[in-house]
């Protein structure tokens, strides 16, 4: 319902601009909090240093926005660059490898609200938000099969584990979402 409230305020402002009536939101940022059910207003000003509309603009034409927005996470460079494809298994390969592997340990690194929606049977939950290889209770000798929703977060966990000395690591490519599409079609998707 939140987008309805916000979209209608946006519509109201468009109409007022067209009619040139009332006081509009130029120079004001309106903040809506649906849980607290309040509106706050923040005065916003032009930044004289702004690279586009400031006094000495450096951006004078459109730029490469994909590159501009590809900002690395501070500290992310300490994670070793690895060839991720070595660790990726398709859902079918992942299932087959696990079924053949007596020391397989299946780890779900999603958050608990996701776990409550669906999970792969036999998995244990170790959310990435509190993930620490040392205190995880996992054994470096185990072969770990990792998954998350789409496969990105479990790859981050995999890199942490590799750094901590774990060697037998596999990642479910496409995550539980692709698993639900290709292996367990009865599983709900979200």
């Amino acid at each position, binding site marked *: *319902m*939140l*987008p*309805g*409230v*916000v*979209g*209608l*305020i*946006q*519509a109201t*402002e*468009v*109409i007022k*601009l*067209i*009619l*040139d*009536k*009332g006081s*509009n*939101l*130029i*120079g*004001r*940022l*309106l*903040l*809506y*909090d*649906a*849980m607290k059910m309040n509106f706050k207003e923040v005065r*916003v*000003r*032009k*930044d004289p240093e*702004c*690279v*586009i*509309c*400031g006094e000495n603009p450096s*951006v004078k*034409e*459109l*730029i*490469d*926005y*994909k590159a*501009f*927005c*590809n*900002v*690395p*996470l*501070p500290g*992310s460079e300490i994670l070793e660059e690895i060839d991720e494809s070595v660790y990726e298994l398709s859902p079918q390969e992942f299932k087959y490898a696990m079924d053949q592997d007596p020391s397989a340990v299946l780890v779900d690194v999603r958050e608990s609200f996701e776990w409550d929606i669906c999970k792969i049977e036999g998995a244990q939950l170790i959310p990435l938000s509190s993930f620490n290889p040392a205190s995880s209770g996992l054994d470096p000798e185990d072969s770990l099969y990792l998954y998350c929703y789409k496969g990105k977060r479990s790859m981050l966990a995999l890199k942490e584990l590799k750094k901590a000395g774990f060697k037998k690591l596999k990642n479910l490519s496409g995550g539980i979402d692709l698993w639900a599409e290709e292996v367990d079609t009865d599983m709900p998707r*979200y």
Partner: protein
Amino acid sequence: MSLNNEEINRYSRHLTLPEVGMSGQLKLKKSSVLMIGAGGLGSPLGMYLGAVGVGKIGLVDFDIVDHTNLHRQISHTTLDEGRLKVESLRDTILMGNPNIEVEIYNIRLERENVLELFSRYDIIADGSDNFETRYLINDAAYFSKKPLVSASIFRFHGQITIFSPETGGPCYRCLYSEPPPAALVPN
């Protein structure tokens, strides 16, 4: 430009408001708004802009209606699943008000197409859902000298403002000079 009898009847509750009146209703009819995003924000935005009589609405979105959209993107119904969002929203708008014109662009907004597109409309309304597009729209609106009515939502929070550096206000970059690290950006 004038209103026909059906339009006069349709907009009669506007025409009797001193703040709108016949001159205001004609301003609406003459105006054009380009909306980026035909999803959660675009649904109510487009439906209302259409109903009140904005003469020309442009819709930009490259997505199709997915089952997980239906609970919040209220212009799309269960029957629209799998259709282009711009087509589904256009049909909803025109069912509400067939007097107006709706132009659809089933494209991803890029630096190669944005300026030409913006040049055809008076006002830009941003309901996009990613930083790349937001910065692109901000810069293009600035170069095109068009007011940008901007809205964004995250979980239970919403933000709305108008960026119009031409008339003294800030632009999006004045508020957010740098995008957040890509790894922290939620889908």
